[in-house]
């Protein structure tokens, strides 16, 4: 157990599909403000781990604690309401809505307690000053204020990524989960996405599931290496780079 209260902690997490344990007793603890990456060879259980944390899958055994609270049995939306944010691999925004509407829907989710049931049903969204101010602020931070009225589907790829991150930011998460945010990007796109993440999400705790080791080495505070559903190694990028087990795992244990 960590000394401080971790932002996220898993305790003996197990996820079985049939007889196959994709995650087989994982304990991790991510401290507030940390940038943690979860890596591992294919089939190591990275995506399963990600889904167990975000609520996309139910754990077979074990528990997930978020901010000290047991969230193991909560559906995704309730984890989000408690301050988790989740970014998607491929831009997963509301294509038919405008940029502003995308961000506003996220802001509105966080501020829903500030208006009554009657207002929620009948007061047009344009008349909520607090929500609109927040929305404008986010649009400014992700640098999309100029094209706020455009339909999201029509944006160029890079702007969609910015919007995707803006939508996550708008829910004001304490912890943001990223699932391979640079998959399918060229080197420049990758760099600008990482820059954006580091720029707008400075205060947040970040968990990144990634296969791109170079990227992970460059940006993480701590790295967890999964293999066969278990934690193979954990440490700073330097420690991981020197770890013989990790090298072996990546070179695969089947031949030689």
């Amino acid at each position, binding site marked *: 157990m960590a000394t401080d209260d971790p932002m996220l902690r898993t305790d003996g997490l197990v996820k079985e599909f049939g007889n*196959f344990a994709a995650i087989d007793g994982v304990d991790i603890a991510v401290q507030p403000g940390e940038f943690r990456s979860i890596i591992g060879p*294919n*089939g190591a259980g990275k995506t399963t781990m990600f889904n167990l944390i975000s609520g996309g899958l139910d754990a077979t055994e074990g528990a997930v604690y978020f901010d000290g609270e047991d969230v193991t049995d909560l559906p995704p939306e309730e984890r989000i309401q408690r301050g988790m944010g989740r970014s998607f*691999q*491929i831009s997963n925004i509301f294509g038919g809505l405008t940029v502003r509407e995308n961000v506003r829907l996220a802001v509105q989710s966080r501020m829903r307690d500030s208006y009554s049931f009657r207002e929620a049903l009948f007061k047009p969204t344009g008349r909520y000053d607090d929500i609109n101010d927040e929305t404008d602020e986010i649009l400014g931070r992700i640098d999309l204020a100029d094209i706020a009225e455009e339909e999201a*589907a029509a944006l160029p790829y890079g702007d969609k990524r910015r919007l995707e991150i803006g939508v996550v930011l708008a829910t004001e998460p304490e912890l943001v989960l990223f699932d*391979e945010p640079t*998959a*399918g*990007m*060229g080197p420049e796109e990758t760099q600008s996405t990482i820059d954006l993440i580091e720029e707008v999400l400075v205060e947040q705790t970040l968990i990144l599931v990634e*296969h*791109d*080791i*170079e990227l992970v080495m460059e940006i993480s505070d701590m790295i967890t290496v999964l293999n066969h559903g278990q934690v193979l190694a954990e440490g700073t990028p330097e420690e*991981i*780079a020197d770890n013989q087990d*990790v*090298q072996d795992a*990546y*070179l*695969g*244990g*089947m*031949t030689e």
Partner: protein
Amino acid sequence: MSPTVAPDGGREVVLSVDGVDAGYGETQVLRDLSLSVEEGEIVSLVGRNGAGKTTTLRTINGILTPTAGTVSYRGEDISGLDQTATAKRGISLVPEERQIFPELSVMENLRLAEFGGATDDAAHSVSVDEALGMFENLAERTDNPGSSLSGGEQQMLAIARALVAGADLILLDEPTEGLAPYIVQDVMDIVEDINERGISVLLVEQNVHVGLELADRNYVIDQGRIVWEGTSEELESNRAILDRHLGVSV
């Protein structure tokens, strides 16, 4: 990039993918991708998750249509053909999920392949009995429904089905995924067996070692482009490529 000539050259080019762009809706996955497979070769396509391996197979097989470039098979442009048409020409996809018909028996799965498949006389037709001869554990369970098979058995059945369909070129998507190590070896043996019958194989693998061991030639794919090509020995000794595009060493 133009289609490459294999090191030993001279054999007929079975499959040639030439400057292909393809993707899903607005998302472009393949960018100017070129590769080729010659008669009787095993060619592996290796790369990381999301690099475009499965998309390449789907574009060849006709599930996806390229937005630029051409796919040709034994000299014929097949870029616009659908799955059925490519299958009739002898291209057989063994998908990653295997896609065994769960409620059909092993025998029925094979007979269905017999009804479909290549119509070309040149195709390497393998009868249902021959196929069952090659896969003993399937022969013992011909009446069992597909859903009762283990992962390894399903993979065997998927390959057997491609053989019965008269495959001339098998597109093999992640055949060892999720299998126990000793079964991985069985699958590798099978791939070598079928290759010895003269069937060309384009193999997609995340497990680089399977690719290295089986393949005559390897293509490394990253972000939808072929970034390297060469023999297994060359790839094995090329730490830079392994590091940069496959992430297999740290």
